[in-house]
């Protein structure tokens, strides 16, 4: 085909492709066809444009109107072609592999990490150490790469190719001409509307929801918890992959075409979706939650903080400033909410007013409430910002302890008071040990202090309970003469002793079976400790004095328990329910 050399030929070509005039032109797309056809059309447009530029100076009204006409038809056509290319060639972003790799990563300690612009950085050697840009303030988490092949951790922005490069070239050709002809607004609008609906589709895939603040207020914590987790995963992909890729695409198509045309297109595409994304976390920062949800809120805060440098990067143009501002505002509000929850929590611990002792000396709800750190994904890796938190937590535990001490005094039974402290402080210790982050924050020294406290309480309890029992098993007071011979044993005193022992032991057995130590290991330990003091003393006592009883009348009234019986009975202790007396046989 000959090159388009004159206006007449150019006009013909353009008119041929006037969709309002011919059915064929409406049905077929130029850019779906062969390359030559495309080139001819573009040449025709250029020709007419040149004509346009030169005839504006002339007074030939008729000619310039014709040219104008042709331009309009060409631009309308190009607009349709533009839209068509965009729609048919847009590939949605890869969310599966990206989502999986990001969500399967356990967020660990922050390190300075390398950032790289190019998406082909797969091999280990090309880790981009040379391009390393460490961030001031918050550094990024190491994460799995977004591409399949790479096994490297990386934190950086990962653009994907959303449109094949041939199509991008075509789009740019069209955009150039539309901008030159003064049809930039139409071009930007078509671009924005198509890309926005693609982004919308990606949002749906990622599970980003359109929830109102009212909706979020009404959600139960479990549901909200899940949504927060999902949001964190989705937000990372949205900012680092989705928005970044869109930005790159805008640059590829619109760079240098007009004043900040690429920025305008980018905003046109992502402003709505970005606001929608942040509205979710904004709603959470506004709503009130009870203090034990603190850790999840901190999680959210940390994730957003981590994203902030990438947000700054992606939304760096002037029109995008409002989005950056919103993100920063939300962040500070989340921090404020977390602070509020922490103080409220502290206040609640201090003020908790109940004077009714917990039955059975078991773990007070307040202790449980204080330590209900339910999420395994807690993230306390910024030591800078969080030693105040650590101190605060320790302070709260101290207050809790103080409160517990106060409560324990409401028990009339001293032994039960110690028992209560033992249970509760032990629980705290277990919880701290169970979370490496908590443990790291609170520190081993304080942990040792707490351990010492509950062990002391256990000892105190044991002593308070068993001193009376053990007193029955002593030698002193049983001998009538100085000579310690068996003949010198006062039978009546001995009988009294046995009777006292039985009575006191029965009482302890009856009462303290109802007491509960929820922690199995602690329960075992305490029982063993009791047996270790009780059994030898009883065995020795029995050994020395049973003959005296058995030689008298009704020995069964006095020797109720064999050593085995005692052992069995002690195993009933601290189970939290009444031991059945009848199920035990008395050994004779």
């Amino acid at each position, binding site marked *: 085909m000959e090159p388009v050399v004159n206006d007449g030929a150019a006009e013909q070509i353009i008119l041929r492709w006037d969709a309002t005039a011919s059915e064929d032109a409406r049905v077929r797309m130029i850019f779906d066809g062969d390359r030559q056809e495309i080139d001819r059309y573009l040449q025709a447009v250029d020709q007419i444009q040149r004509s346009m530029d030169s005839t504006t100076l002339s007074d030939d*009204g008729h000619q*310039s*109107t014709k040219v*104008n*006409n*042709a*331009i*309009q*038809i060409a*631009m*309308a056509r190009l607009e*349709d072609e533009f*839209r068509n290319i965009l729609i048919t060639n847009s590939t949605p972003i890869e969310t599966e592999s990206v989502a999986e790799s990001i969500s399967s990563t356990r967020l660990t300690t922050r390190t300075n990490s390398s950032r790289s612009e190019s998406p082909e950085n797969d091999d280990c050697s090309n880790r981009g150490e040379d391009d390393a840009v460490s961030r001031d303030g918050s550094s990024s988490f190491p994460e799995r790469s977004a591409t399949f092949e790479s096994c490297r951790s990386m934190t950086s922005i990962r653009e994907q190719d959303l449109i094949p490069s041939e199509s991008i070239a075509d789009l740019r050709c069209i955009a150039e001409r539309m901008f030159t002809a003064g*049809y930039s*607004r*139409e071009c930007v*609008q*078509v671009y924005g*509307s198509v890309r*926005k*609906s693609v982004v*919308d589709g990606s949002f749906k895939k990622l599970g980003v*929801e*359109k*929830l*109102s*603040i*009212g*909706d979020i*207020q009404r959600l139960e914590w479990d549901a909200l918890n899940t949504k927060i987790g999902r949001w964190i995963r989705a937000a990372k992909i949205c900012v680092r992959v989705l928005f970044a890729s869109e930005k790159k695409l805008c640059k590829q198509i619109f760079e240098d075409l007009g004043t900040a045309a690429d920025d305008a297109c980018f905003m046109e595409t992502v*402003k*709505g979706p970005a*606001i*929608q994304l942040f*509205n979710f976390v904004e709603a959470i920062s*506004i709503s*009130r939650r009870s203090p034990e949800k603190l850790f999840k809120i901190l999680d959210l805060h940390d994730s957003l903080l981590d994203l902030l440098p990438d947000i700054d990067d992606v939304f760096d143009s002037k029109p995008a400033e409002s989005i950056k501002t919103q993100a920063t*505002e939300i962040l500070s*509000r989340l921090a404020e909410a977390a602070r509020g929850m922490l103080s*409220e929590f502290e*206040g*609640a611990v201090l*003020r*908790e*007013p*109940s004077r009714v002792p917990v039955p059975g000396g078991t773990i007070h*709800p*307040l202790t*449980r*409430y204080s330590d209900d750190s339910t999420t395994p994904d807690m993230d306390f890796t910024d030591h800078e910002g969080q030693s105040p938190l650590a101190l605060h937590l320790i302070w709260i535990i101290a207050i809790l302890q103080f409160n517990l001490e106060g409560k324990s005094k409401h028990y009339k039974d001293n032994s039960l008071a110690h028992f209560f402290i033992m249970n509760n402080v032990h629980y705290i210790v277990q919880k701290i040990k169970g979370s490496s982050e908590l443990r790291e924050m609170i520190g081993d020294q304080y942990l040792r202090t707490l351990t010492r406290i509950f062990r002391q309480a256990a000892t105190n309890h044991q002593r308070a309970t068993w001193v009376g029992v053990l007193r029955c098993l002593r030698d002193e007071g049983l001998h009538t003469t100085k000579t310690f011979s068996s003949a010198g044993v006062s039978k009546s005193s001995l009988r009294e002793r046995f009777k006292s022992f039985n009575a006191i032991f029965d009482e302890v057995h009856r009462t303290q079976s109802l007491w509960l130590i929820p922690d199995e290991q602690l329960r075992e330990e305490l029982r063993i400790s009791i047996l270790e003091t009780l059994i030898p003393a009883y065995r020795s006592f029995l050994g020395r004095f049973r003959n005296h009883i058995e030689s008298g009348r009704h020995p069964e009234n006095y020797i109720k328990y064999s050593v085995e019986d005692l052992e069995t009975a002690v195993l009933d202790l601290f189970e939290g329910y009444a031991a059945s007396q009848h199920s035990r046989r008395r050994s004779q």
Partner: protein
Amino acid sequence: MPPTDNQGSFLNRISIRRNQVVYEHEVEDLEQFQKHVADRLTELFHLPTEDATPSDPPETLLSIAWFRKLLDAFLCCEAEFKAVVIMGRDPTTFAKSPLDRLIPEHLDRSVKALDICNAITHGIDLLLHWQKLAQIAVDSLQQRPFGEGNVKRAKKALDTLLSSITIDDKENHHHSGKYTASKDQETIGNLRSLSYSFAKSWSASKQIQAMSSNLAAPRGGEPTGLVVPVYLMSSVLVFVMWAMVAAIPCQERTGLGAHSQIPKQFPWAHPMNGLQEKIAEDWKKKEKKGRSGLLEETQRLEKLGKNLVEFADGFTFPVEEEKAKEVATQVVEMGDICRRMEDGLMPLQMQVRELFLRMVRSRGEALDVLDQVNKITTPVPYNF
């Protein structure tokens, strides 16, 4: 109240109102508050006469300029409310009936208002989009002489504009996401639905209804003098939200026209009732024609757009002089509106955002006060 000669007497400074002791100072403050609101609403209701120096742009009812003034007034009102009613007050006041019910109700309304603000922000983005379309038409039709190319270009833009403006909210819901016959419809559908920020079940009119359903005028003889200011603040809040939803494209607005009357004894009743009536009237008139919203600029864009499309449809070159002059005037007018939209919509959007942030702040502070109340009066409950 026994008058005494002693100036500094404690008794002089207090007044006994029912069973409640309030400080005279406070009563004055509360009355001033009502007066200020009344004044501002009156300004918005009685628009400047032709004799007075017209503001630029003129603050016609429900124009962008009018809304900026309205939001300004609301922000002042809100600040005064906080200062007079909330700040420095003994928290136990809020534990007493009926405030223990009224304050939480007001806070609940403010949550709904926050959602409405977000919806409005999106709506303003749509308005900006319309402005850009109109601008294309204006620029094309400013070229002389009227040429076929330019006219067709303008018509294309105006067709898109008008379809977007007149599309019914409800109808469009069903189209969102689906591909309709023509490419233009699809784009328009996308444009509209993409400007919806919430799930399909959310409805602006339902939010407004919920906000106003439990808003009852206080009967005379309430035990505390704070009931009226709370009622005032709530009424103003509902009114502002209602007006914005009526004017700016918003998700699902069926049944918006209803409003409740403010009892006449309040000084601010007259302007507020007046405004409500006027706006409700307009809403009823325009309701059947599609729900682009009552914003003055939108209405005029629509009217001018229709005229210009008619011109474009019947266009033949050359255009006779009379017609050309007529069209030129309309183009100038449309250009004027575009300029006003371009100048005013971004600031308006920022005001809405400020409203949002202010309400968030106030709500947080009020909740803090309420928390204090709860702590004093009830032990901390634990439900596990």
